[in-house]
C-alpha cells in the first residue's frame, strides 16, 4: 500500500472548469433519451401488440436487433451512418443523442409492452363497452394505468441509462467521465480524477435508486 492522494486536486476549479459541462451533458442526454425513448418505445410496443403482422414484425426485428448488439457498437454505427445519410458531418454530442433515443426506445418498448400486458383484459373490454375507439381506450384507460405500474421499472432503466451515457467515450463526446478524465490529464492526477468520477457516479445513482424505491412504495396501486 503506497497510496498518495493529492487532495488539493479536488477544488472548485475542477468542478467549474471540467465537471459541470460534462455533468450537464450527461444529464441532458439522459433526459432527452428517456423522453424520446419512452415516446418511440410506446409506439414500438403498440406496434408489437397490434396483432397486425406488418406492424408487429418490423418492430420485433428492430427491438430484438437493438437488444442483441452492444451499446458501444450502436454508438459507433450511428456515428458512422448518420453523417453518411444526411450528407454532412455532425458532432459527437448530437450523434450520441440520436443513438441513445434509438437504442433506449428498444429497451423502453419492452418495459411498455410488459406494462400494457399487465392491465387486466376487463379494463379494455370496459372501454370498448363504453363505445371508446382504440385510440381513446389506449389514451384514457390502458396507458395511464400501465404507466403507473411500470414507473419504477422505467425509472430504474433511466438510472442504467445515466450510467450508460459514460460510453459516449467511444466517440469522444464530452460527458461527465470525460470531464474528469480531461482534468486528470491536465493536472497529471488521473488516479484522483477516476476516483472522484466513481464516487460522483455512485452518489448520484445510489440516491436515485433509493428515491425510486421510496416512490415505488408510495404509488403502488392497491388492488
Amino acid at each position, binding site marked *: *500500500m*503506497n*497510496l498518495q492522494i493529492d487532495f488539493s486536486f479536488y477544488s472548485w476549479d475542477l468542478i467549474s472548469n471540467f465537471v459541470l459541462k460534462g455533468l450537464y451533458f450527461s444529464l441532458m442526454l439522459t433526459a432527452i433519451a428517456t423522453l424520446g425513448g419512452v415516446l418511440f418505445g410506446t409506439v414500438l410496443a403498440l406496434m408489437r401488440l397490434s396483432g397486425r403482422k406488418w406492424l408487429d414484425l418490423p418492430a420485433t426485428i428492430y427491438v430484438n436487433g437493438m437488444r*442483441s*448488439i*452492444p*451499446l*458501444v*457498437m450502436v454508438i*459507433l*454505427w450511428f456515428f*458512422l*451512418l448518420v453523417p453518411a445519410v444526411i450528407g454532412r458531418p455532425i458532432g459527437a454530442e448530437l450523434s450520441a443523442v440520436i443513438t441513445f433515443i434509438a437504442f433506449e426506445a428498444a429497451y423502453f418498448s419492452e418495459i411498455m409492452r410488459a406494462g400494457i400486458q399487465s392491465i387486466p383484459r376487463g379494463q379494455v373490454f370496459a372501454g370498448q363497452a363504453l363505445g371508446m375507439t382504440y385510440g381513446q381506450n389506449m389514451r384514457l384507460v390502458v396507458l395511464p394505468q400501465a404507466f403507473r405500474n411500470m414507473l419504477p421499472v422505467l425509472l430504474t432503466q433511466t438510472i442504467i441509462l445515466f*450510467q*450508460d451515457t*459514460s*460510453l459516449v*467515450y*467511444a466517440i469522444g463526446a464530452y460527458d461527465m*467521465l470525460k470531464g474528469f478524465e480531461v482534468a486528470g490529464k491536465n493536472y497529471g492526477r*488521473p*488516479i484522483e480524477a*477516476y*476516483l472522484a*468520477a*466513481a464516487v460522483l*457516479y*455512485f452518489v448520484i*445513482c*445510489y440516491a436515485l*435508486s433509493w428515491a425510486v424505491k421510496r416512490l415505488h412504495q408510495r404509488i403502488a396501486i392497491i388492488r
Partner: protein
Amino acid sequence: MTWDWQVFCEDTIERTAVQGCFGKDGGITYLDWMLSAWGWTVSVALLALLLALALGLVIGTLRTLPASPWLVRLGNAWVELFRNIPLLVQIFLWYHVVPAFFPTLKSVPGFVLVVLALGFFTSARVAEQVRSGIQALPRGQRYAGMALGFTTAQTYRYVLLPMALRIVIPPLTSETMNIFKNSSVAFAVSVAELTMFAMQAQEETARGIEIYLAVTGLYIVSAFAINRLMAFIERRARVPGFIAASAGGGH
C-alpha cells in the same frame, strides 16, 4: 455505395489482397485479425462469467443467511457498490487506480484487469438473481431442512441451493448475454477484442460499414449461441415436475 468485402482479405500491413484470405508467412489479414479479436471477446466474457458466477453465488447466498445481519449487510453493500458505478468507470478504476494501491498488480496485463472488472461488475447482478431465487422458494423448504436436523450449511447445500439455482437459470441466461455485450467496453483500455478491432480497422481501411456489419454479426452469433447453450443446460438440469420446468423457453 458499393460493397467491398475484399477488404477482409487484405494484408494489414501491405494492404494488398491475399489469396485465400488468410495471411501467409506470418502476415495477417483483416479476417485473421477479426477472428483473433472474436477469440479475445469470447475469452474475456467467459472468464469474467466464471468469476461472476462464483462470486455472485457466494454473495447472493450470504444475503439470505438467517441470523447473520453483518454478512447480509456486507452482501448488500457489495451489490450496491458494483451496481451503481458505470462499467466503464469500474474498468478505469481497475486499470489506473487499483494498481496504484497494490503495486503487485502493475505487472498484470490489461486483459486480466478487464476480466476482474467485468467479473466483479456482473457478480453484483448474479448475486441479486441468486438472492431472489433463494427467497422465491417456499419458506417450508428451509424449515424442512431444519426439521431434519441439518446445519445451515447442509440446508443450503442439499435443500435450498439445488432448487434455487434451477430457478435462476433463465435470468442468468440474459446475464450471460449481457456479459458478452459488456465485454465490448474493454476497448477503452485497448484489449484487442471485437469493438477495438472495429474501431481500428474502420480507421485504417475506411470500409466502416463492411467491418461493422461483420463485427455486429459476430456479436449476434455469440449471443444466439449462448442462448441455445443455456436453454440446453436448462433442459438437462430440469427436475421433472418442478418449477424450473415451466419457466423454460420464452425469452
